[in-house]
């Protein structure tokens, strides 16, 4: 005998009050979904699934989905045609929540459009499926999974959110009688409030992602934490690196715009992929030269320098094919020292920068590389911090640096 559901009007009232509370804004999405479903569970809805999906055309923000399921049930496989770039599970009070991020691309588009959310979006009508009515017409893969979980009724709808985002929410119940009458009206009434909360959450997620993309992860975190006032400069010791794409300047004249883009994209992507695993951060793109830094731990200088060197090796060994079957190579300079790092600028324009003799020295060493016919150059302090043997490249007069500097490279 199925439990009666709480009076829908009362339920709507409670849920509305909860949705209007200021605590909803800024709540962690997984926690929020957990509490939201908790309401439905206490009211007797016997949900087996509650899922939300936020989709955007915004290039830096991925498709973000969440699925609530009962503690004892297994997570449902995400349709693997989309490129899943992050997955996490969270144990809540009412159940478990699976979160996933999916990268942009044709496959993700297809995955979305061929889902109940896609249909709800296209038709601008809720999608409703009842197991009893059409048990064999499971035209969405998820209905198969839901049948296994004992679902009897499924409801999905779009939720209006600010552009350029789109959102949807879905529910599945195991109640013998399915969803109570008036469930679709209830959801329609709640939809504007849900949309505004989703809207805030996704704008906040986007803010994090976009700022990190343009400032770098660590600076973005500080800016968002309110720690970055104009003129706030800190002195830190960092490993500093410069890298450029050897041969690009000479060949750029013979490349069309699209090819230039491809070559540079490949180069920048390689830099990101080489340095990020070693906690490196890209600081600046100066034309086709990139300035990057690594944290330097004074108590473990050798380790810090080794990490940077590993990243450099990965860069030097990377395969960077050109348009005509040729291979581009990179040139890297590494040094460590005190830098002034911070947020400088005018009233309206700010920038992150690192300044100081150490940065200047690294740049000058980097400029020596073509003349020395080498691809890797290390400053004397950096070389002496390494536990491996190095080869001297002699002493050199560097512009803006008082004394002659000895430079090093690795054994051939």
């Amino acid at each position, binding site marked *: 005998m199925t439990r009666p559901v709480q009076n829908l009007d009362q339920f709507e009232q409670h849920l509305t009050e909860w949705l209007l509370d200021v605590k909803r804004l*800024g709540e962690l999405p997984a926690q929020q979904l957990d509490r939201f479903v908790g309401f439905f569970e206490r009211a007797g809805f016997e949900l087996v699934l509650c899922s939300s999906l936020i989709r955007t055309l915004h290039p830096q923000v991925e498709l973000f989905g969440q699925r609530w399921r009962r503690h004892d049930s297994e997570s449902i496989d995400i349709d693997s045609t989309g490129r899943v770039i992050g997955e996490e599970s969270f144990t809540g009070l009412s159940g478990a929540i699976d979160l996933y991020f999916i990268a942009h691309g044709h496959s993700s588009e297809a995955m979305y459009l061929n889902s109940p959310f896609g249909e709800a979006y296209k038709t601008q009508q809720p999608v409703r499926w009842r197991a009893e009515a059409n048990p064999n017409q499971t035209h969405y893969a998820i209905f198969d999974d839901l049948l296994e979980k004992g679902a009897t009724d499924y409801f999905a709808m779009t939720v209006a959110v600010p552009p350029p985002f789109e959102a949807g929410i879905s529910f599945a119940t195991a109640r013998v009688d399915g969803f109570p009458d008036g469930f679709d009206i209830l959801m329609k009434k709640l939809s504007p409030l849900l949309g505004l909360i989703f809207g805030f959450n996704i704008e906040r997620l986007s803010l994090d992602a976009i700022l990190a*993309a343009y400032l770098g992860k660590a600076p973005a975190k500080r800016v968002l934490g309110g720690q970055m006032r104009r003129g706030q400069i800190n002195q830190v010791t960092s490993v500093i690196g410069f890298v450029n794409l050897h041969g690009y300047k000479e060949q750029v004249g013979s490349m069309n715009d699209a090819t230039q883009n491809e070559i540079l994209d490949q180069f920048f992507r390689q830099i990101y992929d080489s340095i990020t695993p070693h906690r490196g951060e890209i600081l600046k793109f100066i034309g086709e030269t990139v300035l990057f830094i690594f944290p330097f731990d004074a108590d473990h200088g050798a380790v810090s320098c080794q990490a940077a060197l590993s990243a450099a090796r990965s860069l030097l060994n990377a395969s960077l094919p050109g348009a005509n079957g040729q291979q581009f190579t990179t040139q890297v300079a590494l040094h460590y020292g005190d830098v002034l790092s911070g947020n400088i600028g005018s009233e309206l324009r*700010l920038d992150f920068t690192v300044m100081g003799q150490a940065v200047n020295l690294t740049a000058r060493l980097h400029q020596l590389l073509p003349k020395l016919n080498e691809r890797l150059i290390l400053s004397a302090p950096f070389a002496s911090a390494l536990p491996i043997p190095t080869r001297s490249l002699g002493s050199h007069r560097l512009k803006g640096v008082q004394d002659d500097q000895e430079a090093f490279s690795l054994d051939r």
Partner: protein
Amino acid sequence: MIAKPTPESLFEHLKSCLLDHARLHEDVDTYLHPLVHSLNEWGLSIAGASVVLRTKHPQLEMLVQRWHPTTSKEVSVDDVRTIVQHYANQKADGTTEVYLLKHGHSNQALYLKSPFAAVEVSGKAESWILNEHMNPPAFPIFPDLVTRGHTEYCVVPVPMPAPYSFMISLSTKAPGGFPDDFLETMIKTVPYIRLSVAHKVERIMMTELLAAYLGRNTAKQVASGRIRHGDLQSLQAVIGFVDLRGFTALTERLNSDQLLALMGSFYSSIDRSVTKYGGEILKFIGDGLLFVFPAHEDATNICQSAVDALQELQMRIHKANKKYPETPIRYAAALHEGHVRYGNIGAPKRLDFTVIGAAVNQTVRLQELGSDHDLTLILSRSVADPIEQPTELLGSFQLTGFKDHLMAYTLKGSMDHD
């Protein structure tokens, strides 16, 4: 128009206005328009409205939006020193003035003596009757409102998640002031106001943060997802690079406050000079600045604009040095023209807006040459030729990055030959 709105019917009306899907698509700068419109549909004769938003932005302390009917004039703000930027968004029935205010604004008398400051302290919504008999008027802005025919004014705080604080004000010209229980109705509407504005506030924050680092136009496009990684445009541009002379010596001689003040003054001068003539600061490299004058359709002689901008810079720095002779700013700048590609480059998770092209490196090399010769401004031939100001050939040089010998020029009669 409704004959006699009840508090309940007004509440329902406001609620449906705030939750309407149309709100989602409206520009963040026009938040007050639909609110005022829906109140006036109910016969409230709203003649002014404001929003005050406090944020944790590196340079901005507050954002203020002030709505006034297009027929009335906005209050003058000429003497307000804390305005970083001010622009207006005009619609058919009303105009929203937007003010970006820098840190310290909340310590200004203008703010401290405002109803907003009072409500910030009390945390409670409040309304005041306005008439000639106010003695003394509760706030300095009230007499002016009375002159304009306003009869009642209220401020309603809307609690927001960290790091925001948000307040809304309304004032009416209706003969009897606001309707009965209006403040209670507004307080009841607060959760809906909050939800309707929360995502817009977050978007404003994103745009302002990005604007600080990418420039306003670019930021707006990035925030709305209209710019994609790899969006690059090819254009002719004058590229400039300028840095401080003797920076290392300065870092040793000055304490950090003095150094920051000097740098701040330097960068502000460059920003103002460059943007005045249609240029744009691209990035800071070390203590130097890279800027461009792109050749868009409406930009006619970019070389002329660039040189004019640098002459203005020279004047500004000269003035600043007169004012602060103990910490003189000396700089070296170069201008070069070339073909560049400008746009969104980088790796998928680490992007930048910048120019790429041989002309960028050439400009930096040219600037080094100028600096070596103790010059404030050095020009390549492509910039020196099309300008009005008379120029003088410095010489012919072989620089890295340039195929042929480079002819470098200075401005005749410039202060460079001190």
